[in-house]
């Protein structure tokens, strides 16, 4: 009987590729965001609204993760920004390798901001570093109050939480106080924006924040 000690990080290969992506994003002075949520929480609609607001101020590219379809990519393309589709063919998350390849296609354009729209899932994407500058989690109020404590990792690792479908809050039992309370104990420093992709409420605040983040990254690198 032989014992072989490994102490080998299971996602080590992904970590390496994520570091490579991060240095590419830095070299190109592009802010890269990893956008994560459950299916149907409104990531694509928020992206459409954000592109409408920021599209004439900065150059935006989108990497669209989807299991099989390119429906979301088609919606984004109509907004006049560069978009690359990744079909994961059933894999429940994007990994750094997939993003690196997609970014090669995108990076021929000089971009200020790249959104990486992950596969709709609150579990698996949380484990995979894509090389992003920071993570944004979208939660819609129709999903209920229990999501933060059921999926603590994804909320712990987020810099920004967008609470979407705020226009529907009076029709649900969602308690914003309880949500904020749960979020604060898991992640005290997360920034929260209440938004509605449908009505556009809150999108300006979120977009202003993004613009500041883009400028901050660019000025830190010059």
């Amino acid at each position: 009987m032989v014992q072989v000690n490994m102490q080998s990080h299971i996602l080590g290969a992904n970590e390496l590729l994520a570091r490579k992506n991060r240095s590419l994003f830095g070299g190109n002075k592009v802010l890269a965001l990893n956008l994560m949520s459950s299916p149907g929480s409104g990531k694509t609609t928020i992206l459409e609204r954000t592109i409408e607001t920021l599209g004439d101020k900065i150059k935006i590219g989108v990497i669209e993760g989807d299991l099989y379809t390119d429906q979301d990519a088609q919606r984004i393309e109509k907004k006049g920004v560069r978009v690359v589709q990744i079909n994961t063919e059933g894999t429940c998350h994007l990994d750094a390798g997939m993003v690196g390849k997609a970014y090669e296609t995108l990076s021929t354009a000089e971009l200020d901001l790249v959104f990486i729209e992950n596969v709709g899932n609150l579990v698996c994407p949380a484990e995979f570093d894509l090389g992003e500058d920071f993570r944004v989690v979208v939660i819609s109020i129709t999903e209920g109050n229990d999501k933060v404590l059921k999926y603590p990792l994804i909320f712990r690792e987020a810099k920004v939480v967008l609470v979407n479908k705020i226009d529907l809050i009076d029709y649900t039992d969602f308690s914003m106080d309880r949500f904020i309370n749960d979020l604060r104990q898991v992640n005290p420093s997360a920034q929260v924006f209440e938004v509605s992709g449908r009505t556009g409420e809150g999108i300006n605040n979120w977009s202003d924040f993004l613009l500041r983040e883009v400028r901050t990254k660019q000025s830190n690198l010059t």
Partner: protein
Amino acid sequence: MHELSIIQSVVDTVRDSAQENGIKRVNKVKLVIGKMTMALPDSLQFAFEAIVIDEMFENAVLEIEEREITCECSSCQHCFQVDDAYRFICPNCGHDRVDIIGGRELYIDYFEGDEDIDGTS
């Protein structure tokens, strides 16, 4: 269900290392998994049984050591464990800047095997 891709990666890594070390048959693979990862031990066991069909892993068992979520307060340096309520706030001084120092583990600790296929080595 990313447990399947985690196990695929584990099996690939162990197979490569077994070949390098002249090991023909793997008897046990030991993983360390923190409770702050989103990998569920039961799903990992299931994936291991589902994915492992070749001779090298025929009789291999998967052992998983779970690690608690442990934090250190950046104000008073108090170390504490976080339970299922996921309260990342220092119970000693109430400070909310805490570093996770345990619970994110996701690694292969070791594996055991035999250099002969009949296990006589």
